[in-house]
C-alpha cells in the first residue's frame, strides 16, 4: 500500500471503506453508549428503584464499592464456576459425539439422507420450546423415568429437577441434545472435504484407520475443529434459554449460570450499578481472552 496511489487503488480503498462502514457503524452504535453508561453507573449505587433517571446516578456515587463487592460475591464466583463446569462437560461431549457421528456419515449407506435429516432436527427446535419439553421429560413421573423403568423393570421416580446435582445433569443433557447436531454438521462438512487421495496414499503405506484418522484427517481439519469448538464455547458460556425455562437456575442456585445470575439481579434485585460492574469485569476478561485468541490464530 506504500506504492503511489493509482486510480484503481483509490477505487479499492474507497470501496473498502464504504463496504465496511455499515458494520463499523453498527459496532460503534452497540458499544459506545452502553460502555459509557455501564462505566458511569458501575461507580454508583444507582438503581431504577432510586426514583431518579440514570443520568443523575452520581448522587449515589460509591467510588469502587461495586468492584470490591465483586471480589467477595460468592454467588457470582460460583455462577462462573458452574458456567465453566457446564462448558467443560458439554462442549467436549458435543464435540466427541458430533465427531463420532460424523465419521459414520462420511461414506454412503442406505438410509443416510433420512438419518442425516433427523439428526439435525434439534437445531430447528426453538430453545425456549426445548426448555418446556425437557421440563416435562424430566418430571419424576415423566418420560425419561418411564424409559429408565423399561430397563430396570420397576417404576423409576427420580426427582431430577429437585436435586441440585441431577438438575445440573438434566440441563446439561438438554444442551448436549440441542447442540451436538451443529457439531456433527460442521465436522461432517470438514470430514467430507478431506481429499481422498491422501487417505488412499496413506492406506497404501499400510497405515491403520486410526492412524490415518489421527495423522491425516485431524490435522487437515484443524481449523474447522478450532472454529467449531470456539463457536460452541462462546455460546455455551452464555447458556440461558433452555436452562432458565427448565429450572429457573434452581433448585436454590444449583443451576445458576452467569447469564441466569445477571438476569436475576437485573430484573429482580434491580441493582443495576452492580450489574454494570459485573458486565465491565466480564468484558475486560473476555477482551483479553479474545486478543490472546486472535494472536494465536494469526500465528
Amino acid at each position, binding site marked *: 500500500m506504500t506504492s503511489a496511489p493509482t486510480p484503481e487503488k483509490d477505487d479499492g480503498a474507497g470501496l473498502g471503506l464504504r463496504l465496511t462502514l455499515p458494520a463499523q457503524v453498527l459496532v460503534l452504535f452497540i458499544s459506545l453508549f452502553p460502555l459509557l453508561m455501564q462505566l458511569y453507573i458501575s461507580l454508583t449505587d444507582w438503581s431504577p428503584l432510586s426514583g431518579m433517571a440514570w443520568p443523575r446516578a452520581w448522587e449515589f456515587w460509591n467510588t469502587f464499592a461495586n468492584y470490591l463487592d465483586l471480589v467477595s460475591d460468592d454467588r457470582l464466583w460460583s455462577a462462573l464456576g458452574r458456567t465453566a463446569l457446564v462448558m467443560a462437560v458439554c462442549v467436549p461431549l458435543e464435540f466427541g459425539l458430533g465427531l463420532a457421528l460424523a465419521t459414520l456419515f462420511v461414506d454412503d449407506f442406505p438410509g443416510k439422507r433420512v438419518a442425516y435429516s433427523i439428526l439435525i432436527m434439534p437445531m430447528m427446535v426453538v430453545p425456549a420450546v426445548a426448555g418446556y419439553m425437557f421440563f416435562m421429560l424430566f418430571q419424576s413421573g415423566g418420560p425419561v423415568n418411564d424409559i429408565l423403568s423399561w430397563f430396570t423393570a420397576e417404576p423409576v421416580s427420580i426427582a431430577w429437577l429437585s436435586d441440585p446435582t441431577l438438575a445440573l445433569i438434566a440441563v446439561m443433557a438438554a444442551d448436549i441434545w440441542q447442540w451436538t447436531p451443529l457439531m456433527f454438521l460442521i465436522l461432517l462438512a470438514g470430514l467430507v472435504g478431506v481429499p481422498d487421495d491422501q487417505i488412499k496414499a496413506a492406506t497404501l503405506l499400510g497405515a491403520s484407520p486410526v492412524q490415518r484418522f489421527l495423522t491425516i484427517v485431524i490435522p487437515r481439519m484443524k481449523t474447522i475443529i478450532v472454529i467449531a469448538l470456539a463457536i460452541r464455547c462462546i455460546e455455551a458460556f452464555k447458556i440461558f434459554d433452555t436452562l432458565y425455562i427448565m429450572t429457573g437456575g434452581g433448585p*436454590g442456585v444449583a443451576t445458576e449460570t452467569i447469564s441466569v445470575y445477571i438476569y436475576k439481579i437485573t430484573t429482580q434485585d*434491580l441493582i443495576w450499578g452492580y450489574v454494570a460492574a459485573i458486565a465491565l469485569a466480564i468484558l475486560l476478561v473476555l477482551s483479553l481472552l479474545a486478543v490472546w485468541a486472535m494472536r494465536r490464530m494469526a500465528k
Partner: protein
Amino acid sequence: MITRRMTRRGFLGTGAQMGIVGAGALFAPRWVGQAWGQDLAAGMIGGPTGFDGCEAYQYGPDTPEGRAIEGAKALKGAGKVDKIVLGLSDGSIGQLTQPFPAGAPSIKELWERETGITIEIVGLPNGQEFTKTMQDISTGAGGFDIYSTDWNRLGDLAESGGIAKLDDFVAQYKPEWDDGASGYVGGAQGVALLNQYRGSTYGVSLDGDFQSWVYRTDLFADPKEQADFKAKHGYDLAPPKTWKQLDEIAAFFNRPDKGMVGCSDLRNQGWGYTNWYQRFTSMANPNQYLFAEDGTPLINSAEGVAATTEYVASLSHHSPDAISWGWPEQYGSFGAGNTAMTCAFSNLPKFLDNAGNTGSVVTGKVGSMLPPGREVGGGLIRRSVLWFSLTGMVSAQSKNAEAAYLLLQWLGSARIYAWMTANPGGYFDPFRLSDFSDKLVRQTYHDYHMDMVRETVARTVPTINYAGATAYHNALDENLMAALTGAKTAEQAMADASDEWAKITRRTGEDKVIEAIKASRAGWPTLVDPI
C-alpha cells in the same frame, strides 16, 4: 419466574383437573339465577343486575362505587379519557371478563357500560408482573395506566417514582377503606398495611393472600387414629396449637408407603420462605421481627437458626418432591386425599371442598385451623403471613391517572369486590370485612373457612414490602433453598442471608429502609393467644 410456578407434571394433572372441575361446578346450576329483571333497585345508580341477590352489589350515589362511577363519567364527559390500559396477570383476567353468576354482566362490561370508558387488559405472564412493570417504568415506555403486581413491591415501586401517589384522589373520592363494617380488617391500620407506603397511599388492594391452614377433618376424627396418636404422644389428636405439635402430627400421618404426606406447606423456591416466616416470627412475644429498629438484621440469631433448622427438619414429613412442589401439586395432593395438613392461599377449600368437584375425594372433609404457634413469655404466639397479594397501582406515566384510580376504587370497594372475589375465574381472594360476611363469597369459600381466615388475618405478619423487598426476599430464599438442599447448614444460611441483607440495606439507602422498618411495625399483629 416461570419455572417457580411450574411444576411436576404428574401432580399438576390431578390438581389442574380438579381445579377445572371445581370451577366448572361453580359456574353450574348452584347459582344459575333466574333473571329477575334488569332494573336496579330503588335509589341505586349502578351495579350488576340479572341474578338472584344482585341488589346486594348495587350502589347509590353516595358510596365509594357511586363516587367512582360519577367521577369517571365526568372525566369521560369532559373528553379527558377514553380508555384505561390495565396490566394484569393472565390468570386473573377471567374475574374481570367472565360473567358471574349466570345472568350477570362481567365486571369489565359493567364498568364500560356505566362510564363509557373502555378497559384494555394487557395480560402479563404469571411471575413476570413485576419484571414487566419495572421495564415499563425504567424505560419510560408508559404502556400502562394501571400496574397490578404483588403487594410486596409497593415500597420498591413507590421509591422508583414509577407509581403515582394517590393521596389527593383518596381525599377527593373517599374510598371508605377503613369503614368499620365493610372495610379492611384492622381499620385504618389495615389500610396502611395494604395500600400505603411511608404514610401515603400508592396502591389499592385487590387480593387477600393471608396464608391459611387447613386439615382433614375425617382423619383427625377417626377413633383409631385418635387412639393410636394418644398412645404414642400422650395428648389428644386435634388441630395443632404449636409447631412442635404440628411436626408430631405431621410425622404421625406421614406414610410414604401409602402415598400419604403429613404436611405439605410449600418448600419450593419463591414460595417456601413464607412458611419459614411463620416459624421465625412466632419465636418472640409478641413478634420476632426480621430487623431491629436500627436496621440490623435479626435472622442471624439463635431464633433464626432454630426456625431454619425446624424448617429443614420438617422436610421429613413432606413429599420427597417437596422442593419442587408449587401450589398445583400441593392442591392436587390434598384433593387426592394424600395430605393431612397444609398451609395455602385461602382459595383451597373453594376448589377442593366442593360437591361439584368429582375429582376431589376430600369434599366435606376439610377443616380450617389457626396457624400453629409457640409458647413465649406467657402467651401462645400464632403467626401466619401476608405475601404476594395482587395490588393495583397507578402508573406515574399515566395520562389518565384520575380515571385509573377511580377504576381501582370501584374494583376494590365493598360491593364490587365481594362480587368479583366470589367469581372463580381468577386469583383475587377475599380480604375485606364485607367479603367475610358476603353470601356469595361465603358460599364459594365456605362458612367454616371464612371465619377462620378472618381470625388468621388478625394473626398475620406482613412480609417485607418496603424498598429492597425483592432483593431481601431473594437473598433469604436462596439461602433457605441452600439449607433445604443441604448445600449450607442452617447457621451458614442465616449468616449469609444476614450479610446479604446488610449489603442490600446499604444499597437501598439506610435512612429509607430504617424509616420503613419502623413504619411497618404498626402492621404487625399484637394478638397473643392464651396458652
